[in-house]
């Protein structure tokens, strides 16, 4: 593509000279093409002004109010505290219960690998080339995946990032969704959330492409293909930046390079599947070489070994509590991973990567918290909740809108029927943008996906 464009224009410098005086005006930075061709149509559902009283509140940013209250109205958090003025709002007495921000899962494949997991619906890995930065996970999302309802009703998950799979070095763009069923993907799309680029280290890309007898087949091959691609992207970015500021003939569009240009300009966040400490260090150096920032290493099983390095580079880690040993790069897992990262001051959070795990992320954090405490660390529940909502919101670039119970933010709220770090606790009600989307006590407030209608088990509590 780039080669053809060069021939047609007889190289950029030449055409500039030839067309001097009739040069097209510049469109302005980032205006050479649409950066949002599939815009969100999500609208908050109607909610009622609500005051929840007599609850233990974890605000998601490390704050806690015992015997507290949460007030929300018009889809936004109004106040958290005690002795709030209901001002005509519905009052829910939550005696003995807890309120938290909705859980945010930074790593999900719901919709792209939906239930039932049959080949016909398996749309998460464009495993046809090691770099497929041109694919967008949102174009695979099946908004009728029954998994969304389980994540809501059992997990209290209100926002989730859907990523392409990890077959490729650069697997494509992620999409952030509100966990509200819609007829279209756009109807679930989180308004204004930045895109992510899914990258993958290690065993997966080298296995997939080594198995096809092509590069990369080794870890050094992984890095080589990545660097060659970033070099190309830097050139593409230069051309488009120049065109958008100086005008002239527009460079040829390359949908793959659009994504990488977005990363290099800081518009798209890098979410890098990477298990091993040594590989993460190499990726951070590669990022410096090409001038981009890794937002978060996902599945970062060995992050605990390099917590200082991650902190120094400002890179987050999204981890499981206790997955281990399913492949060599997960062999060194410890349940204290999250706690050690946090203790060392590195950004850390829980993630699921799993349609079942997403239903119990609160319990996963409970395990990580308990392991950290046994290793001698002091970890409060209110601090541990930052691993479930605020840190993922920051890592996904949506912390201004959600992730904690701060006035003005989206009223993404879960009322738990007990301590949310207990195995015996369940979500009782879940609000998204102030609209009640799940109510344990109301059978009509449990969503049933199209696929489940008329099937055995339809409408069961699950």
């Amino acid at each position: 593509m780039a080669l053809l464009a060069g021939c047609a224009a007889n190289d950029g410098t030449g055409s500039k000279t030839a067309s001097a005086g009739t040069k097209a005006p510049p469109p302005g930075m980032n205006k050479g093409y649409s950066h949002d061709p599939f815009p969100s149509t999500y609208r908050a559902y109607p909610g009622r002004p609500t005051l929840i009283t007599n609850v233990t509140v974890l605000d998601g940013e490390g704050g806690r109010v015992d015997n507290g209250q949460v007030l929300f109205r018009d889809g936004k958090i109004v106040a958290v505290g005690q002795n709030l003025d209901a001002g005509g709002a519905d009052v829910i007495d939550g005696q003995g219960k807890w309120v938290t921000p909705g859980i945010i899962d930074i790593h999900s494949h719901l919709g792209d690998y939906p239930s039932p997991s049959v080949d016909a619906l398996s749309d998460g890995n464009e495993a046809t080339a090691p770099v497929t930065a041109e694919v967008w996970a949102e174009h695979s999302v099946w908004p009728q995946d029954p998994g969304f309802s389980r994540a809501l009703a059992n997990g209290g998950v209100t926002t989730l990032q859907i990523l392409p799979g990890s077959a490729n070095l650069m697997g494509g763009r992620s999409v952030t969704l509100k966990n509200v069923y819609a007829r279209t993907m756009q109807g679930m799309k989180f308004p204004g959330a930045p895109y992510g680029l899914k990258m993958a280290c290690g065993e997966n890309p080298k296995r997939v492409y080594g198995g096809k007898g092509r590069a990369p087949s080794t870890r050094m091959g992984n890095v080589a293909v990545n660097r060659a691609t970033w070099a190309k992207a830097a050139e593409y970015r230069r051309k488009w930046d120049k065109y958008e500021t100086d005008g002239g003939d527009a460079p040829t569009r390359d949908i793959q390079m659009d994504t990488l240009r977005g990363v290099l300009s800081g518009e798209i966040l890098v979410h890098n599947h990477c298990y091993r400490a040594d590989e993460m260090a190499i990726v951070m150096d590669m990022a410096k070489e090409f001038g981009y920032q890794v937002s978060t290493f996902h599945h970062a099983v060995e992050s605990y070994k390099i917590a200082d390095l991650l902190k120094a580079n400002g890179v987050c880690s999204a981890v499981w509590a206790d997955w281990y040993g399913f492949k060599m790069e997960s062999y060194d897992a410890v349940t204290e991973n999250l706690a050690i990262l946090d203790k060392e001051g590195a950004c850390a959070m829980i993630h699921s990567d799993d349609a079942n795990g997403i239903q119990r992320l609160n319990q996963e954090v409970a395990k990580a918290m308990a392991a950290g405490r046994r290793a001698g660390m002091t970890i409060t529940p209110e601090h541990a909740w930052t691993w479930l909502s605020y840190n993922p919101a920051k890592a996904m670039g949506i912390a201004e809108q959600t992730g904690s119970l701060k006035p003005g933010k989206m009223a993404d709220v879960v009322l738990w029927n007990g301590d949310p770090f207990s195995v015996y606790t369940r979500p009782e009600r879940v609000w998204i943008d102030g609209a009640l989307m799940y109510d344990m006590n109301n059978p009509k407030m449990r969503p049933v996906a199209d696929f489940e209608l008329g099937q055995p088990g339809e409408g069961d509590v699950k």
Partner: protein
Amino acid sequence: MRGLKLIAALMATAAALPAAAQDVAITNAKLVIGDGSEPVDGGTVVIRGGRVVAAGAGVAVPGGMRSVDAGGRWVSPGIVAGFTRMGVVEVDGVRDTDDSAAAGSVFNAGLDLAPAVNPRSTPIAVNRAEGITRAVVAPDPRGSIFAGQGAVIDLGADMDAVVRPRAFQFMEWGETGADRAGGSRAAAMAMLRNAFHEAQAYRRNPSSYEDRGKDALLTRTDAAALVPVIEGRMPLLVHVERASDILTLIELKREFPTLRPVLVGATEGWTVAREVAAAKIPVIASALADLPASFEKLAATQSNIGRLKAAGVTVGIGSINDDEARQARLVKQYAGNLVALTKVPGASGLSWGQAFATISSLPAEAIGMGDEIGSLRAGRRGDVVIWDGDPLEVGTAATTVFVDGVEQPLSNRQTRLRDRYLDPKEGTLPKAYQY
């Protein structure tokens, strides 16, 4: 060089011979028997010669016996993992370390998993540290619906892991069985009937049974292995999910009345719970599978076990296609979640005592070993765990673990890695010198 390594390995083995069972009484316990009853305060459990002698609230400590004061903490039988591939897989992604399946073998039902069990595989130590003391270990079929003969193991830190070799035959039914038989459920049924009839022929006259080698539909080895199954001396664990497939198996038991089928998975079991109960077929179920993950699991719900239990079925928890090589420890969390369900209108959960039984006595009973393991009733193996809290609560740790009355080490690779990296920064020497 190879010889030297072998000698070193043998010496290490000798050093790791099992410690002698200790006679011990644990007193002042919040005691869980594991039989479905609720925990009692002030309980005592007495272990002598590796077996439970007595357990309960009014049990006296025999004179001169070592006594451990539990200080009111929870004490329970060791957890029995109802379905695993523990000890036969080290790393799934490293084919060389995986003995669970044999795609290239001509043998199927005749495969015996017991010699493949490696008591030093890391998942055994990791799960032991979390209070798992016994596991049902199953092979995974490739060229047949029959996978071979699974074992029951203990998780003690010694080289003698296999408690009962050839404890059961494992079979795939439903979608996977159809695939293994050549592509359809009809093919699976034909394969099963043919295998049973061949096994009957072998049983009638073993010496005249002709082994047709690679061309045979059933080798002599496989036919011989199925004899105890059709005679009912060996349970037949069957992975099955769809309700109609469960009913087919119930029909099959009518045709072969001596069969002792045990349903494994049984995601749609609740929809035919009365039939399963009437057939007196035990179940080792997936606990929290609530997604229509395949077309044979459309009726999936977390209430499955609660509803089976309510219908009178013997039902325990197993990890079917659920990190079965390593994560048996999760069954505690699963059982706790079944208790949480009791608070959800319309759902069916379990009481605490019932939930604990699904990971102790019930899986043991399902495979016919309830008189040996899974509870603190007198005569059972001396598998006891002292916990620092409610064992079904996430975050609770096992503080003391006995297997056959022998107190177990709780350290493992993961605790060593944690200790090395609690302070991640390099010191005056590289981390490799810190151990």
